[in-house]
């Protein structure tokens, strides 16, 4: 076959493949939104779930998802920040650093179900935290740490070496230079990374089913005393999240409108991720402009 014809056929095939992939991906997205969006209503988003009857909502699960996300981020951000600072700013290129980097890489490649099982073993059973928000938040933290660390490290990398030298030349320690010069300059990019990782954490379920648990006791949204069992703030209560809810009702199959609820919940998850994505881009750009504009 002559090269010209071959070329035409090959390029045509590639068009076909790419077209097919677009079709699959759009169909997927379309399916989620088309089947899910009609389910969304104020009632659906706020009402508690019903186990055996139709017409329940996902209010508690939605709230749990956000609360867990918040806690997980509060725990993992400072750790990831410190680790990234050490790795990028202080660590020398030697075998210790290489080993530590390998360990972090391994953590990021562990299946989330393994992380969840460890959380179950360690927090739920050993530390007797039970199925609780706290156990879940720790499991999510483990799941989140390696990625967040890497993303913050990448953010630090975007700040020029000359900025660090500028700080040192003024007689500042490296720590002061990092915290007063480098981090403020890296905020837009760090924030983008944090929000994107929040999207991943928000949809995680496998790490949670045996840590935060699979039940969502009703919450009393007028009771903000974190020591009361029905208080939304109580970190010791079991807390099924939206993602876990989808898995749970589909595995048990006792809820009559499981499919509708799942569709709606899937749409909420996907919309939330979309929102996180846009927010990350928008805020990152906005902040960067503020930092550099006259």
């Amino acid at each position, binding site marked *: 076959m002559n090269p010209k014809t*071959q070329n035409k056929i090959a390029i045509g095939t590639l068009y076909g493949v790419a077209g097919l992939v677009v079709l699959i991906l759009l169909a997927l997205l379309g399916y989620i939104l088309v089947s899910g969006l009609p389910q969304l209503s104020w009632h659906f988003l706020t009402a508690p779930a019903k186990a055996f009857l139709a017409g329940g909502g996902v209010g508690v699960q939605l709230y749990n998802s956000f609360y867990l996300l918040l806690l997980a981020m509060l725990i993992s951000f400072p750790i990831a920040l410190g680790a990234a600072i050490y790795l990028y700013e202080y660590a020398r290129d030697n075998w210790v650093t290489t080993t530590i980097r390998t360990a972090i890489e391994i953590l990021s490649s562990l299946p989330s179900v393994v992380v969840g099982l460890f959380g179950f073993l360690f927090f739920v059973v050993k530390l007797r935290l039970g199925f609780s928000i706290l156990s879940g938040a720790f499991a999510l933290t483990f799941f989140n740490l390696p990625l967040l660390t890497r993303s913050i490290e990448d953010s630090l990398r975007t700040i020029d070496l000359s900025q660090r030298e500028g700080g040192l030349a003024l007689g500042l320690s490296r720590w002061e230079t990092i915290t007063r010069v480098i981090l403020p300059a890296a905020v837009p990019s760090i924030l983008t990374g944090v929000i*994107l990782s929040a999207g991943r954490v928000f949809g995680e379920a496998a790490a949670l089913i045996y840590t935060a648990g699979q039940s969502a006791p009703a919450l009393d949204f007028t009771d903000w005393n974190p020591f009361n069992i029905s208080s939304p703030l109580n970190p010791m209560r079991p807390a099924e999240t939206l993602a876990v809810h989808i898995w749970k009702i589909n595995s048990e199959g006792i809820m009559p409108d499981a499919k509708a609820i799942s569709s709606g919940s899937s749409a909420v998850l996907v919309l939330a991720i979309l929102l996180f994505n846009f927010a990350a881009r928008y805020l990152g750009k906005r902040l960067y402009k503020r930092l550099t504009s006259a």
Partner: protein
Amino acid sequence: MKTTQQLERQLKRHSKAAKLEIWGKVVSFSALLLIVAVVVGIIGFVASKGIATFTSNHVSLWDFLTEKKWNPGITDANGKPEVGALPMIVGSFLITILSAVVATPFAIGTAVFMNEISPNKGAKILQPVTELLVGIPSVVYGFIGLSVVVPATRAIFGGSGFGILSGTCVLFVMILPTVTSMSVDALRSVPRYYREASLALGATQWQTIYKVVLRAATPGLMTAVVFGMARAFGEALAVQMVIGNAALMPGSLVDPAATLTSVLTTGIGNTVMGSLQNNALWSLALVLLLMSLVFNLIIRLIGRKGRLQ
């Protein structure tokens, strides 16, 4: 020379900056150590639990890896517990390999299209779509598998619709965006002048892509595929929802089967800590963990080889 001594004293005073420097190093290094401790903790715990099956319950490792009956609560005619994990191991590898085999041509084809043939359309449509889909939670993939793929399989092949085939379909779509976007990165790292040199020699675009670009990007593309496989192998819920969860050797692609992850998700809540049933599950988790280390190693080896070239 009093002033010199004074100056020397001033210059040798441990300044606030020096104290902050030590503090900063200690704090940031502690954070790093904490992460390392987590990794060591996870591996240590899972390993110690996972080998209990062999050390305290005296199951033979060989039986575990080769026997086909999984029923840790029951002992067979010889009085040995039935802890043959082969069906799950086969199930996990089967869906991983199948989904990678299906996803690879699509992912690389799409990446080539995005990067080489139509960078414009690639950037406008495909890039944002793949980036978004990379972030879609796996339970959503599982749910769609359950409500679309399983019924479709049932309609076409009969049976329950649950099985390896459905699992493969779900994983294929799930790893497709990841593998695609990593492949795009791999292609992007091929220097522009490679292409220009090849085109200038009179090669067609396809020859350039096939002989120059793909070849130069091979390590990166392989990394992308292995990464996708690692993700498929470790995925729990999406697979568990569509595979049927029957711990049997899969007779065909449309029979209910099980994977390491699916048995783990369904089983761990129903067993008592410390019992053989429970330990056997931890052994599955250990296999999962070891496999993820192996994938990690493969990715490293590819990376090293890529650098050497």
